[in-house]
């Protein structure tokens, strides 16, 4: 390999390592690093470095996630990329058993899912009383208030002075909103498909009789 190519690879590897230090460890009150901070530390090719890092993280089921302040941005400008916040998140998903081991009860997860889905359906904000009312359909009142406070404390939801709930930084960083809404909307169809697949006889294909 030519020494120049080798040198270039070494420089990229060093920058990817610097990016790991910036993204893995918490430097501010909240996790994540702004694009301009990455540019400052990694140089003008910071976005390529992130792409390389993302590929390197793939076998470990991790990924580099980018979150814009304005969730409606589709084709970002350089300025918006610099203002965006970058995180390392799990690439795949976790099952209920694992979620329990990291301190989440199934009620807590479902409550958060309902709160987020309800807020999404209300274009990103909804009065706290309305969210409480929806949650109280299936969860006891005392638990609803406690859970909402917990979601707010953990950064999943935010509450303004008027008592309006909105999606906070952690929901925007961690939850694939489109996938969540799609999964909820397609629940009936998925359940039917599962039932059909489990019906005895339907799965078994008739075997041709051999011999005579």
């Amino acid at each position: 390999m030519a020494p120049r190519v080798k040198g270039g690879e070494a420089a990229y590897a060093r920058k990817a390592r610097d990016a790991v230090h910036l993204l893995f460890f918490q430097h501010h009150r909240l996790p994540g690093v702004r694009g301009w901070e990455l540019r400052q530390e990694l140089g003008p090719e910071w976005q390529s470095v992130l792409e390389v890092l993302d590929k390197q993280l793939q076998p470990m089921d991790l990924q580099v996630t980018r979150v814009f302040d304005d969730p409606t941005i589709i084709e970002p400008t350089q300025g918006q990329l610099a203002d965006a916040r970058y995180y390392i998140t799990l690439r795949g998903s976790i099952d209920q058993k694992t979620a329990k081991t990291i301190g989440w009860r199934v009620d807590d997860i479902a409550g958060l899912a309902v709160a987020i889905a309800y807020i999404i359906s209300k274009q990103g904000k909804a009065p706290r009383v309305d969210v409480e009312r929806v949650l109280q359909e299936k969860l006891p009142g005392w638990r609803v208030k406690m859970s909402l406070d917990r979601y707010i404390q953990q950064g999943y939801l935010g509450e303004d002075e008027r008592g309006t709930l909105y999606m906070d930084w952690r929901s925007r960083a961690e939850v694939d909103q489109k996938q969540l809404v799609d999964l909820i909307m397609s629940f009936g169809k998925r359940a039917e498909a599962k039932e059909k697949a489990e019906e005895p006889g339907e799965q078994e294909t008739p075997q041709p009789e051999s011999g005579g």
Partner: protein
Amino acid sequence: MSRAQAQEELRSIIGLCRTVTAGGVEPFAVDVDYILSVIRKHYPEIRSLSEFCTDAEAISELSGVLKRQDEWIQHQSTTLYKDPFLLSQQLMRMEIGAIADSFLRSWHPVLEMEQLSARTLAGSLVYWTDLLPMSMRWSQAEVAEVEAGTATIDEARELGIIPEEGFAEMLEASWRELGEKAGVGGRIGYWDWIGADTYQETVIRSYLACFMVSYGYADIVTDRFGENAELVHNPEPKAEPQRGKITIPTLVDYEEWRKWHRG
């Protein structure tokens, strides 16, 4: 309609607009033209400052409703839009376990690490060892009143308040010394250059180093974290009056000097 009733009507409009802004009511469920006509109807009757404020508040809240309508249209045009009624019906139909499962499939938690390395711990222990006890750090400075006197220039020189040679000569001497220590055009660690047997001398050397950089006798280079600095000897002093003078604040801390002195 009395003025009190008019104010009441405006307040109810403000309340309605706020409910829309908070997401309690669909933005297009509100008749903006009607609200505007009510505001317009009461405007000529305004007499006091508080009535003006209520009128302005109503307009401000109405603009919030229009903003919400704009957001609503934008949201509907995205792939994220699903009918809120259908979505809530679907949520009611689903069991808690199924909702949790849907969430977990779209949840990618952020990785957060807060970790101390052995190196950080070792560094902190050294800091702790060097840290003076609170009783010593907070002890009252003993200040004694002294009578002011006068001194001649020669006496001041003897006391070291005024340098014995001119400032330019001191800079030249410092530059020559840098050339000898770092080599002509060579570089030397900042602390290796300024560090001296006494703290006082270290501060003086740091002071001169600043001027050497400002007057083009030397350059200072730092790594991108600003932790390691080096002085670079300039074989020819580059007096460039056009060049903007830079100021590099460097802390010559007593504790740091002690640490350096101990090696």
